[in-house]
């Protein structure tokens, strides 16, 4: 019996796909369905069979304070981190999109945080954010040197203003941030600030050592207001860690997109009288819209799932200050010194999947509708 050509092609295709389908079938499809099933039972991983519970897990989970905290933390984390890291990635890409000598070296350097693993970076950040660690030291120094920095800025602005006014009086078109004048202003401001410091006219402030217990405190920022908006300080530390790690990956994506924007568009805008900021608003942003939406979608998805950094800091930071949905699922399934609660864990996991789906749908609906 000869098979038709189409049948032979289909057979070959499934042959190619078989390993992938098997792996995905067992470790994704079956796993997904099983988790949904587990969310409707009580089960503790022992030989005792699961007991049907209907919607009991879902009803009881929304009454657990730890779950609600995890939900709040996860959503706040996702929104803040996605916004900041998308913006930072775009700005970094714009900075790198210059054809100057050595830009490739800078690009390599900027991508470095994305290369190493979450454990390495989290350990480094735990060490930096210690009570007597580097971050607090830098903050103390910044507070101590504030008067000198203020003097520096004052001199800078004044000198730049004067120079621009002088140039304009000479009928030369000087922008307010003219680079050549800015260099002179910077040099004079540095010299002036050093002179003021040496002569003792402006002295460093006497400040108490900054002593913020970044990772061990339960206080929040903002420290008052509705509890939904009060994000714990350890979570802010983890957010900064996450932004620092993932922004470079998205920066590379934006860079690829920026390099595909034809220069002629910028030139046309410049002829029409647009300055740099306007060019970016009206030429850059619309041209990279597809990549922008991709970056936002990827950012939302990955920040909703944040686990590694939380698991690593969980021994040091108070649990309610850093718990996220993903970590809540894990600790419900494998609690240290307690009975596993697979039903609760699965219900939380299903909720996490639903939240992810909702966020992606919202992003698709409101942000890419114009792209059609």
């Amino acid at each position: 019996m000869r098979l038709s050509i189409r049948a032979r092609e289909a057979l070959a295709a499934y042959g190619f796909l078989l390993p992938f389908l098997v792996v995905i079938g067992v470790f994704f499809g079956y796993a997904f369905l099983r988790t949904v099933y587990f969310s409707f039972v009580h089960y503790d991983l022992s030989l005792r069979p699961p007991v049907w519970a209907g919607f009991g897990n879902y009803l009881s989970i929304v009454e657990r304070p730890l779950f609600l905290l995890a939900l709040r933390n996860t959503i706040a984390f996702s929104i803040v981190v996605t916004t900041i890291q998308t913006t930072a990635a775009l700005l970094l890409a714009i900075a790198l999109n210059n054809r100057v000598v050595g830009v490739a070296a800078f690009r390599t350097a900027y991508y470095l945080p994305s290369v190493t693993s979450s454990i390495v970076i989290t350990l480094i950040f735990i060490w930096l954010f210690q009570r007597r660690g580097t971050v607090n030291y830098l903050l103390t120094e910044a507070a101590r040197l504030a008067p000198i920095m203020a003097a520096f800025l004052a001199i800078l602005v004044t000198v730049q203003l004067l120079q621009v006014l002088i140039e304009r009086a000479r009928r030369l078109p000087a922008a307010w941030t003219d680079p050549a004048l800015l260099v002179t202003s910077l040099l004079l401001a540095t010299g002036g600030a050093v002179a003021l410091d040496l002569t003792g006219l402006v002295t460093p402030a006497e400040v108490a050592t900054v002593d913020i217990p970044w990772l061990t405190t339960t206080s929040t920022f903002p420290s008052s207001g509705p509890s939904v908006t009060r994000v714990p300080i350890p979570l802010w530390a983890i957010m900064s860690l996450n932004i620092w790690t993932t922004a470079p990956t998205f920066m590379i994506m934006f860079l690829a997109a920026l390099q595909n924007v034809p220069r002629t568009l910028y030139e046309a805008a410049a002829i029409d009288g647009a300055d740099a900021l306007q060019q970016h608003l009206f030429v850059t942003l619309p041209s990279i819209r597809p990549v922008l939406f991709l970056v936002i979608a990827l950012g939302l998805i990955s920040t909703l799932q944040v686990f590694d950094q939380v698991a690593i800091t969980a021994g040091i930071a108070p649990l309610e200050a850093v718990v996220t949905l993903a970590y809540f699922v894990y600790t419900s399934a494998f609690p240290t010194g307690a009975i596993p609660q697979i039903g609760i864990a699965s219900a939380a996991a299903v909720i996490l999947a639903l939240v992810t789906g909702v966020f992606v749908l919202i992003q698709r609906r409101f942000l890419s509708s114009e792209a059609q």
Partner: protein
Amino acid sequence: MRAARVVAATRNADRRWLARRRWARAGILYAIMLAIAVFMVGPFVYSAISSVKDDATGYPPSLLPDQLRVRNWNAAWRLARDGGGGGLTGEWRPERAIELDVTWLAADPDGEPLPSIPTAGLGTGRAAVAEAELAREVTNLREPVLVTTAATGAGTLLTYRFRLEHSGSVTAPELPFQVVAPRGWTFVEATLAPNLVRGGLFGRGTLQWVDLTAGTLGYVFRSYIQAWTLNRLPDGRAAFPRWVTNSFIVALVLVATRVVLASMAGYALARLDFPGRALIFGLVLFAQMVPGQVLFISNYLVLRDGIWGLTGFFGVPTLLGTLGGIIAPLVVGAAQVFIMKQFMEGIPREIEEAARIDGAGPWTTFTRVIMPLCGPAVGALVILSFQGAWNEFFWPLVVVGGEQAQYTLPIGLNFFKTFYTAGVGRWDLILAGSLISAIPVLVLFVVFQRSFIEGVSFTAVKG
């Protein structure tokens, strides 16, 4: 003519003015980019510097610890040579003698410093104590000799010379050394900077050297050597090298399986026509969105039962706590299939049709025609897969549980964190271990940075 000269002069002035602006703009751009680079690379450089410090949590933090001073490199070299070994990593050999100068500022020059070979408080673990006891057995400590005295406004500067002689017949790998100074003496400097400086102002001050004959490499990279050797598995083998091996095995196996299996699946989705194609592609898209936390409970149970007893045929009752268990679900994933499919769709159909005319079946077309053209995509996939597998944290955490010998590096480092932050803490070990684990991916990145970055850009442009 005067008008022409004025116009020419004005044009020159304009050109110079514009040129000045260009140079200034370039300069400021470089300055900004440099500042950003400091911010991005700074934490790594600073942790590398701090990983060699004796006390990585000292306050205020310093950028130039003893281990990075050339003076100490030379001193460590000289002392190691005096001890009879090489200058890079020394030993304490029979019939050798070492001399060490230490300077104090003494308010009251009465009293003598007291040298000894300590057996406690240096490294951790029984191995360090045994080596210290061996050193003590074979070393003869001479009386310290006052070499120079200098009176200053704040007291007297006293320099003592200590002489250690090897009076035994066995080579000792390490030579720890300790000096306890009388009360009120402040430590100023020594030939080789001590690893520990304690007390002094209100009690008797103590200076400790972990190993006088460490040699330059042994002195500078002490924390790295200790991170590699100190931690022991229950059966006595060193833990860290084992974790490195595990990580390599997992990463290399996953790279191989992913390249092969994702290419096959990607080819089918890109070029072959079959019922259910759209459905499977939809599955590929959907699967990339689902977080690992939704799937791990079932996968954990599947591994626990040995994939429904299948692995029982190979004599392995359960895949939990094994490297195979880590590898199994990660063997091929939707993201890799997606990358290969997108790339293969860019290959012109004419090439395939030519192969088909020549009578090639799907498998031959795949292996002989398509795969050779997939170099860039395979390169990007190899790098991204290696990086992903090497850095994988959540799933190995679930699988290996407490089985220390099967930890991969990320899990091992997490264990380091718990183990070495207790009490005084050895952050230098934690940082050293972290940086060791970052080296393979960093090397890969530096060598193949073009492919790394192309791989990421490719996802953006085609995704």
